[in-house]
């Protein structure tokens, strides 16, 4: 590239700008590439520097030669006029594939050269790195201290496949289940018959096993195992699940809506296709409503709960029926 230190302006070829990094090394760069950096551009225009080796533009301290190379690669690509947005995007995605340390250096250097588009690109990349890691990994990557007490740590809700709110729901219901178990032990409630409605189970099974559903289900010893096919959130574990009635509204919604949910997933997909990549998560979520729910925190089986739950349920139901009969208010409001 550089051909000697004397001839700078080659009449029939490009012009070069001379840049000096903080370590003292000097290099020359094609003019249109260097001028893509606002800081360099300003220096050239306002001070006339950069035209020869002796008058090289002194770059900010945050720009070391190695990083300068990357930045110039970026400039070299993007300063070309005719490129399509798709091309630029593809280049950018490949460009930022580097380790975190270099990304930080790059962000810093780009900022000192006032190269805003590159700062945006690298900050977004760093944000994505943060998004993809556990708290421990983040601390390690960015060399951060673990100086919060357990109480201070906001609930780390992250789980790669789960929606954080669903995990909270799981926790709440797991706790509720525990409470009910305790209560059952104390009360010594009568065990009511396993009220599995055989008819609905069959319906359910046939639906789940139908072609276009993403699940397969089998029944063994009146326990339904549902396995989500190709479901990213299921982690390919066979889940044992009692065909239980609705204690938590989520499970009820799922069970009642299983036929409809699976049935209309194509239409759901249609809306989602039109949306951003986050839509993929939606698909996971809606098809994976089984799995997050089934991954109970402690992994305990809730076999013993049905009778107690049923009792509670019956009580609630009586309550409602009573209120429904005595109070017409809600009907008119709704």
């Amino acid at each position, binding site marked *: 590239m550089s051909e000697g230190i004397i001839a700078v302006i080659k009449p029939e070829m490009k012009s070069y700008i001379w840049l000096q990094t903080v370590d003292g090394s000097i290099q020359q760069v094609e003019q249109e590439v260097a001028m893509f950096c606002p800081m360099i551009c300003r220096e050239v225009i306002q001070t006339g520097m950069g035209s020869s080796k002796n008058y090289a533009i002194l770059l900010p301290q945050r720009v070391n030669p190695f990083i300068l190379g990357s930045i110039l690669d970026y400039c070299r690509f993007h300063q070309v006029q005719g490129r399509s947005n798709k091309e630029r995007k593809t280049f950018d995605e490949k460009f930022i594939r580097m380790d975190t340390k270099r990304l930080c250096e790059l*962000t810093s250097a780009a900022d000192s050269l006032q190269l805003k588009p590159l700062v945006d690109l690298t900050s977004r990349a760093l944000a994505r790195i943060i998004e993809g890691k556990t708290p421990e990994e983040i601390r390690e990557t960015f060399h951060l201290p673990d100086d919060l007490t357990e109480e201070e740590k906001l609930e780390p809700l992250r789980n790669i496949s789960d*929606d954080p709110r669903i995990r909270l729901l799981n926790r709440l219901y797991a706790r509720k289940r525990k409470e009910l178990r305790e209560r059952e032990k104390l009360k010594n409630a009568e065990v009511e018959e396993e009220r599995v409605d055989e008819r609905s189970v069959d319906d359910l099974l046939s639906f789940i096993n139908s072609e276009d559903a993403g699940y397969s289900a089998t029944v063994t010893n009146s326990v339904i195992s549902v396995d989500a096919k190709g479901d990213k959130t299921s982690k390919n574990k066979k889940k044992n699940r009692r065909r239980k009635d609705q204690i938590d509204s989520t499970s009820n919604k799922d069970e009642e809506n299983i036929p409809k949910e699976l049935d209309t997933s194509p239409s759901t997909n249609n*809306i989602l296709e039109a949306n951003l990549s986050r839509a993929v998560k939606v698909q996971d979520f809606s098809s994976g409503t089984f799995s997050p729910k089934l991954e109970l925190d402690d992994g305990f089986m809730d076999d013993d709960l049905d009778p107690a739950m049923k009792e509670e349920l019956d009580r609630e139901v009586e309550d409602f*029926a009573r*209120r429904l009969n005595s109070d017409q208010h809600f009907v008119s409001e709704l």
Partner: protein
Amino acid sequence: MELIPGLPDDLARECLSRVPCEEFSSVGSICRGWKAEIESPAFLSQRRSTGQSQALVVLAQARPNPAERPDSPKQLLPPVCLLSVFEPLTGRWTDLPPPPGCTNGLPRFCRLAAVGMELVVVGGLDPFTWEASAAVYIYSFLSGKWRRGNDMPVRDRIFFGCASDGERTLFVAGGHDTDKNALRSALAYDIRGDRWVPVPDMAIERDECRVTFRGGEFVVVSGYTTDAQGKFERSVEAFNVATWSWRPVEENILDAHTSPRACVEGGPGDDSLYALRKSGGDVAALRGSAWRSVANLPADVTSQTHVLRWCDKLIVFGWGSEGRSDDAVFVLDLCSSKWTKMEIPEGYSGAVMEGCVLEI
């Protein structure tokens, strides 16, 4: 201690501000510096000003009662009030679990308001006892947790209007008590200090009024008096926060037959009041003292259950001449006057009783 060693703090902020809101609780549990950063008001305003914020529309919907069994035909249990979160930009719907202990959903006909990164749920009818609830539940999208705020001082108030200034104050006005007496009283809740503050009474009773916040004032729209049940006033009354007093009632503002539920304030910098007018079949804006039509109402949404504002758009839930459109959300771009219809996925349909929009 730098936020990110090796990066100037302002650049570290750029990175953190680009993290999606689902990661807030994780970011806040990394270290002291990050926790402080994410909890600072500057963080939220940077997200908003740089366009990184996400719009979340929180809705209180009537959903099938979980206690209802499909195989018992004679059960007809009242629906429960549950929260969903709708992201209008991505079309994504998710559940927001109710507060711990609310196994039967939230109080029915509760009011919602958005304050910073928090959702405030206040009032309504207790789902078990059907009595007026004075409970205040606050959900932080930062921590992903619910907490209780101090109860409303007077428990006996339902179907009141409620709005927030988005910063720290929640304003409650009107409604009725258990004897169906319309109320003239109002109160304010300071979220940061977790305390209720009395507010002077309004000029008239306003049951089922709507409260909006614009220009530093809480504007109470319409409502009806005890003697004129269901006959909505056409007046509005504005409470000026700076002077802590009510301005005189402005009469004859609304069209006849315009429900306060069909009214919503304009966005920042837009002092208009918008109303969906059934009589005119249009959406109109009130600027100063004149109403001007800005868009037609599509046939699908001639009656509204709820209207929300998001940026310079209106989000409308309702139904039309064909019947209830539980499966669609209608979004009106106020600039272009164009309507967009967005489908509501299965499992999330249900009458929208109340809603609010968060930008976090």
